[in-house]
């Protein structure tokens, strides 16, 4: 993916966190304890974890809104812990919850802030404002001179992202940027961010407490437990299919239902009976079967009773008396032992919403279709959601005491942070 950089824009930089720690004065424990993490250029990494786990503190250390107590941050190999924080922040985009737009400035003035600070000419700034509004899907003519309060929450958030990207920084830090908008707008903003990221290939570090958001947006996800200890840092797929420990599976929560696809077997779900015909059957019989069935195709079995071809009405018309050359060959079958994930995979690749299930020696036993899968997954989802809720409650309770202690420590240090 990094081999498609947009022609005129700066693509991502690597970020390395090396033994990064933050300890507020007066607090016994550090809020962030020795995080080491390497984020590749052009990658979206999501830091996700329960509230108070230090994910936001970790993020804010990258642009030094919070000064690390020890450790190093390297952006593109350069240690930024020693450079002027104001200069650093102008090269690192920053978008926050509920947009953080300045209400006394127009949309254009907000977006123009960083380019002006880094000394762009007025005409270049004006062009850039229009370009950025376009990029986030807002019409420059309509929105340029509006004040933030005349925008919807979703529009404000878009402008917030436009402002963060205005000076074309290689790195974008996003601190629960979509936390304060309604779920539908959030979906749209997430899709939009994915689209943007495909075009821009920035290095994005994204903080959220919403695991589904993490799954959707992250190339890789770092699941953090208290004090920003990394419980697992891997691709969404890997986390879903093999969570490192109970903490991760607990946090994955509702998403574990996807993982359940792996643990549930085809034989555990209801297999539909499909109309079948055999190789030797006369064409008229095949027609009758088709007419009698509620489906628009029948499954042709070979002489040993194994799924051979899918026959549709149109196929029969073109068959001209012989079944040998008619229909679509069966590409893929699953056995009763296959996981639902495999079945889903097969259903998707078969491209017609169903896959044949075979028993011993490959004999046809039935068909799994999309509807069956959806229904059974739905049931699993419900069950898992209940489990996850209970699990999260337990986790949260266990953490409340500690979080409170940390917050008191933070307040004593004169800087609020989560």
């Amino acid at each position: 993916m990094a081999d498609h950089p947009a022609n005129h824009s700066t693509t991502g930089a690597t970020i390395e966190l090396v033994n990064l720690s933050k300890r507020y004065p007066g607090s016994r424990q550090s809020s962030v304890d020795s995080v080491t993490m390497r984020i590749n250029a052009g990658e979206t990494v999501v830091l996700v974890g329960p509230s108070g786990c230090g994910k936001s503190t970790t993020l804010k250390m990258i642009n030094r809104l919070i000064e690390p107590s020890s450790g190093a941050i390297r952006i593109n190999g350069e240690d930024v812990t020693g450079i002027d924080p104001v200069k650093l922040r102008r090269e690192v985009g920053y978008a926050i919850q509920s947009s953080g737009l300045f209400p006394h400035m127009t949309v254009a003035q907000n977006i123009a802030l960083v380019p002006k600070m880094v000394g762009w000419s007025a005409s270049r700034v004006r062009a850039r404002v229009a370009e950025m509004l376009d990029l986030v899907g807002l019409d420059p003519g309509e929105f340029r001179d509006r004040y933030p309060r005349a925008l919807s929450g979703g529009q404000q958030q878009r402008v917030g992202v436009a402002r963060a990207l205005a000076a074309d920084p290689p790195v974008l830090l996003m601190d629960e940027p979509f936390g304060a908008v309604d779920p539908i707008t959030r979906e749209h903003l997430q899709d939009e961010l994915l689209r943007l990221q495909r075009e821009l290939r920035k290095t994005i570090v994204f903080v959220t407490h919403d695991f589904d958001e993490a799954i959707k947006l992250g190339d890789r996800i770092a699941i953090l437990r208290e004090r920003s200890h990394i419980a697992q840092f891997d691709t969404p797929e890997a986390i879903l299919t093999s969570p490192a420990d109970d903490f991760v599976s607990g946090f994955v929560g509702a998403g574990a239902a996807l993982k359940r696809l792996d643990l549930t077997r085809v034989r555990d779900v209801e297999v539909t009976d499909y109309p079948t015909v055999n190789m030797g059957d006369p064409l008229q019989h095949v027609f009758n079967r088709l007419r009698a069935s509620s489906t628009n195709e029948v499954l042709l079995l070979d002489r040993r009773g194994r799924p051979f071809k899918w026959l549709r009405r149109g196929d029969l018309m073109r068959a001209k008396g012989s079944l040998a050359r008619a229909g679509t060959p069966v590409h893929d079958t699953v056995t009763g032992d296959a996981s639902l994930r495999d079945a889903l995979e097969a259903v998707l690749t078969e491209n017609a919403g169903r896959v044949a299930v075979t028993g011993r020696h490959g004999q046809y036993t039935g068909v799994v279709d999309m509807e069956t899968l959806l229904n059974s997954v739905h049931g699993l989802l419900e069950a898992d959601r209940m489990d996850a809720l209970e699990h999260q409650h337990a986790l949260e309770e266990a953490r409340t005491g500690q979080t409170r202690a940390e917050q008191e420590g933070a307040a004593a240090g004169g800087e609020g942070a989560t």
Partner: protein
Amino acid sequence: MPVSFWEYVGTYHEKLLFDAWQHAGAVFQCMVVATVTGVLIGVATYRREWAAGLATTTTSALLTVPSLAMIGLLIPVVGLGVAPTVIALTLYGLLPVVRNAVVGLRGVDPLLVDAAKGIGMSRPLRLLRVELPLAWPPILTGIRVSTQMLMGIAAIAAYASGPGLGNEIFRGIASLGSANALNQVLAGALGIVALALLFDAAYVLLGRLTIPRGIRG
């Protein structure tokens, strides 16, 4: 034979206008000094709880000193005339400005300050472009309140031979029973009320001009 109020005003309008001009000038100039000083004190103290508390307590303590006593206390130190007037007016003008500056600056959404920091605004830039503009509406209110108050207090300045409409009032009080005594007090008092209204109208206009549409109530 007492003349009517309007005849009095007609006869002495030049002198009255001069006093009113002097009065307005004194209040205006002292307000400028009080605003600049007050905002600076606010900026210097709002980040620290104790400093902000100290600033507001000190200025409100000053305000509890009766203005006549304050001028009386200043005369032995700075003499008669303009000096004690200006000093007293500026001191009294400080409190509402300092208090509203502190409240306004502390009231700026910390999320916005965080955002300003996060996009790389230096501290002076943050103050000038974000915090002060957002705190400006309450500060302007403070300035308005201060100005109204100073209008009245400036009248007392005549006691120390200061400028302004207070001279009319004091002259009237000193010659109570004489033909024009009441007219003099009335002219002074009404003049001050008229000035106060004019100033207030000016502040409303100033607010329209200086408070961006995005944060206007």
